[in-house]
C-alpha cells in the first residue's frame, strides 16, 4: 500500500479515488471535503460538501444558500467511512471551524492539514496534533525568517500608537474571515474597551463570530460615523481598502496591516503600510517544523508557499519530503477582494 493509492495530487486538488472525494478542490466536483472557509479552499458549486458546521455556515454566508448540491456537517473527532476510506476532522487552529482532515485506509493514515497554526487564538479551537504516516503541510511561511512572535505584543504596539496620535484614525487591514476577529479579540484582551469600527465587508462574518459566542465588544460600522467621530479610533478593514478612496473619510489615517508578511520590510513598504503588525493565522517556521516532527510522519508533502526551504529542511531531518504542486491556493490576503467595496462601506 503506497500513500499515493489513497490520496493523489491532481490539478483539481487532492483526490481520493477510492473514497470518491476531493479535498479543497479548486473547481466544482461531485464530493468535496473542505478544511476551512477561506475562498481559496472553499469554493461554490460542488455536488456535495462535507465540512464542519462553522465552515458550512461561513460558505453559506459568503456564497448564498445554494452554494452546493447538498451539505453534511461533521464534528471534530467524528469518523465517517466513505467507500472503505475513513475520514475524520480535527481542529487546525487557523480560523473558526477550520479542520485538518485525516484520511485512513488499510492502516495508513494521511493528514491533510489545510492551513493551520499552533499559536493561541481566542476565536477558534486550538490546533490538535494528529499522529500520522504522511503529513501534508502548508508552507505559506516556510522560511526561517518567519517567526511570528507574540501577537499580543503587536497589539500593544498598535494601542501605544493610538495613544500617541489621538487625532488620527488607525485603520487595520486584516483578512475579513478570521484575522479581523482575532485582532479584535486581542485588542479586547489588552483592555481596550472603546468601539472598534468595521468596514462593511467585515460585518457579516463578524456578526457570525459574535453569534457563536465570541465576545468582540461594541463593533459599529464606519458607514454610520462622521469623520470627526473616527479621530483616535481603530477600524478593521480588508487589506485592499487601505489604499482605496474609502480611506479619505478618515482623519489623517495611520495605515496598519495585520499579517505574517509584515515581518519582511520590503513587503510592508510595497503596500505603503505605516504600522506593520506581525500577526498571522498560519504556523511560522518554528511552528511548521515542530508540528512536522511531532506528527511522527515519515513522509511529508509540502503545498502552497515556500516549498523548497521546507522540503530541504525535512531532508536534513531524514524525512522523505516532496512538494505538491497544487495551483489555486494563494495568499488569502491577496485574494481578499472586497465584494462590498462598491457600496462605499
Amino acid at each position, binding site marked *: 500500500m503506497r500513500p499515493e493509492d489513497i490520496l493523489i495530487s491532481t490539478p483539481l486538488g487532492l483526490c481520493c479515488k477510492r473514497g470518491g472525494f476531493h479535498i479543497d478542490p479548486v473547481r466544482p466536483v461531485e464530493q468535496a471535503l473542505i478544511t476551512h472557509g477561506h475562498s481559496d479552499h472553499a469554493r461554490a458549486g460542488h455536488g456535495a460538501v462535507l465540512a464542519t458546521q462553522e465552515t458550512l455556515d461561513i460558505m453559506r454566508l459568503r456564497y448564498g444558500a445554494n452554494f452546493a448540491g447538498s451539505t453534511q456537517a461533521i464534528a471534530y473527532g467524528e469518523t465517517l467511512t466513505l467507500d472503505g476510506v475513513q475520514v475524520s476532522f480535527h481542529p487546525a487552529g487557523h480560523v473558526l471551524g477550520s479542520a485538518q482532515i485525516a484520511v485512513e485506509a488499510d492502516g495508513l493514515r494521511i493528514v491533510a492539514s489545510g492551513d493551520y497554526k499552533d499559536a493561541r487564538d481566542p476565536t477558534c479551537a486550538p490546533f490538535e496534533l494528529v499522529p500520522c504516516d504522511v503529513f501534508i503541510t502548508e508552507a505559506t511561511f516556510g*522560511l*526561517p*525568517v*518567519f*517567526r511570528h*512572535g507574540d501577537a499580543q505584543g503587536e497589539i500593544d*504596539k498598535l494601542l501605544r*500608537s493610538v495613544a*500617541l*496620535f489621538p487625532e488620527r484614525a488607525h485603520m487595520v487591514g486584516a483578512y475579513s474571515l478570521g484575522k479581523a476577529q482575532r485582532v479584535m479579540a486581542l485588542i479586547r484582551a489588552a483592555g481596550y474597551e472603546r468601539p472598534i469600527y468595521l468596514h462593511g465587508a467585515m460585518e457579516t462574518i463578524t456578526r457570525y463570530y459574535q453569534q457563536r459566542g465570541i465576545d468582540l465588544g461594541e463593533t459599529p460600522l464606519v458607514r454610520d460615523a462622521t469623520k470627526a467621530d473616527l479621530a483616535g479610533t481603530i477600524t478593521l478593514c480588508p487589506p485592499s481598502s*487601505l*489604499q*482605496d*478612496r*474609502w*480611506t*479619505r473619510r478618515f482623519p*489623517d489615517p495611520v*495605515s496598519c496591516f495585520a499579517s505574517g508578511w509584515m*515581518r*519582511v*520590510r*520590503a513587503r*510592508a*513598504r*510595497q*503596500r*505603503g*503600510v*505605516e*504600522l*506593520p503588525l506581525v500577526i498571522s493565522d498560519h504556523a511560522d517556521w518554528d511552528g511548521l517544523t515542530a508540528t512536522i516532527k511531532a506528527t511522527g510522519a515519515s513522509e511529508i508533502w509540502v503545498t502552497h508557499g*515556500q516549498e*523548497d*526551504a521546507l522540503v*530541504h*529542511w525535512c531532508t*536534513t531531518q531524514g524525512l522523505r519530503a516532496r512538494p505538491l504542486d497544487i495551483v489555486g491556493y494563494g495568499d488569502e490576503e491577496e485574494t481578499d477582494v472586497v465584494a462590498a467595496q462598491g457600496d462605499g462601506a
Partner: protein
Amino acid sequence: MNRFAELLDRLAYEPGRNNKLRLMSDYFRNTPAPERGYALAALTGTLSFQHAKPNVIRTLIEQRTDPVLFGLSRDYVGDTSETIALMWPVDPAKRPNAIPSITDVVTILNTLGKLELPAQLARWLDALDETGRWALLKLVTGALRVGVSARLAKTAAGSLGDKAPDEIELIWPGLAPPYLELFAWVEGRGERPQTDDPAPFRPAMLSHAIEETDFAALDAREFCAEWKWDGTRVQAAAGTRPDGRHVARLYSRTGEDISGSFPDLAEVLGFDGAIDGELLILREGRVQSFNVLQQRLNRKTVTPKLIAEFPAHLRAYDLLFENGEDLRTLPFTERRTRLEALLKRLDTPRIDLSPLIPFADWETLTAARADPASAGAGADAEAVEGVMIKRRDAPYVPGRPKGLWWKWKRDPFIVDAVLMYAQRGSGKRSSYYSDYTFGVWTDGGELVPVGKAYFGFTDAELLEIDRFVRKHTVSRFGPVREVVHDQGQGLVFEVAFEGLQRSTRHKSGVAMRFPRISRLRWDKPPRDADRLETLEKILVKIEQGRGPAPEATGAEKRDRMPL
C-alpha cells in the same frame, strides 16, 4: 533597546515629518538618561564603531545556519542584515535574561577588542527579538537609514522644552553623548551648556524668492547684487582653542559638520571667524556645474583621487565673525569690506570672493540675469542659477527675515511631456495616484520616460489627475498603473526643471534635476508633446555654458518676471 528598536521601526515606515518628530519626542520624553542620550547620538549619526563590519556579522550567521536556508531566505528578504536579524536562531531555553540597552551596547563596544566582538554580538543577538536584532545591526554598522536627519533629531530633542533647533546647533559641537547637560537645559533643569568650541556653527541667513510685484517698491540704489552660485551653501568656521590648537570646520546650511568630507577645504581655513559661502568644484579656475559637484557630495570615503578630480573651493559671500568680534549687526557693505580684507590676507586659491554685479537699475540687472556670461560671470556662467539681491544696509539675521535678501532664480527649463505611469503616494496621499512618470517622443514615434515628479500641482489638480488615472488605466503592476498614452489619447504635463544631466540608468539617456509639474495641458493632444531631441539640445546648451533656455517645440516659454 526594545523601545529604541520600536522607535526606529516606526520611523522607517512613517513618511510624515511631523509624525516622525512626535515619535522621537515621545521617546525622549519617556526614556530615562543616559539611554535617550545615546539614542540621540545614534539618530544624529554621532556614533561609530570601528570593528563592527558587515562581514563580522555575516560570518556569525554562517556558523549558525544552514547555508541553503540562508540563501533562500536572503533571496526572499532582499537585504542581508535584515535576513540575519530575522533568521538568527534562538534557543528559548538559552536566551539571556537581560536585554541590552543602547548604553550597554555603546559603552561595551567602545572598550571591546576586535577579537572579543563576535561573541559579544552573538550574546546580544540571542537576547533580542527580530526588531531588536534589526535595530542592533543598524546601530553597530552605523547606517540607520530611517529617514531622519540629524537636524530633525535635534529638533525633537529641543521640543521637550521650547528650544529651537538653531539654539541646539549653536552648542552642539561642544557636546558629547549621552548629552545629560543638553537634556537638563532643554527641560529647564539646568543651565545652558557652555560651549568652549572655538568654531561653532552660526545659524544661516536665508532669502525670499522675489516676485514680479516686489520690484516696484524697491529702489535699485539701495541694493547690491551677486550671482547665485549653483553649489552647496556652507559655513566655514575656524578658531583657536585655549591650548593653542587651531580648529577649522565646514558646516552645511543646517549646521551639520561636513568637514570630514572636505578635508582639502578644511585645511586652508587659516583664520579666526566664520565665513558664509558656496561650496563649488573648481577646475583650472573654472566653476564646474552642479552635476560635477554632485559626484563629490555624499561620498562616504574621501580618497586622494576624489580630491584631485573634484577639488573643493569656497566662494565667499559674507563674514559673520572675525577674531571674536560679532559682525552680524554691521551693514552688509561693511561686512563685505572686512571679508575682502580677510581674503586678501589669507591669500589662498581655494577661497575667493563672490563678485558683485554692477547695475544702476533693475533693467540692467534683468539683462545680467538673462545672460550672466556677458555680465561678468564669463566662463562660469554655467554655474550661475540666478542672482541674489541684498540690501546694502542689511544686518546678518539668522533665519529668513523679510525684506533684506532676495533670490531671483533663472527661469526653469520647460517641456511638455506625456503621463505614462502613476504610482500611489504615501502617508496622506496613499489613496491618490500622485507620483508621475512622464515621457517624450523619440524619432521612432515611441514615448520614452524622462523623469518622475510628485509635486507642483494643487490639491484640486491632484484630484483631477487621480480621476484621470483611475479611468484610463491600461495595466497595473502593484501600486503602479500604466496610463493610456498614445498619439491621440493621454494627459500632457508641462514639466519645469532646473537642469539636465546624462544618465546611463535611464532609457532616455538623460535625467532631470528638480522636476515638477508646472501646468496640466488638458487642451493638448499627446502627439504635440516635446521630443527627446529638445532635451538633447538643452543638454548641449547646459554643457556649453548655460544661455537662455531654448524654445521647446511644443511649449511656450513662460515669462514669470517680465520687466
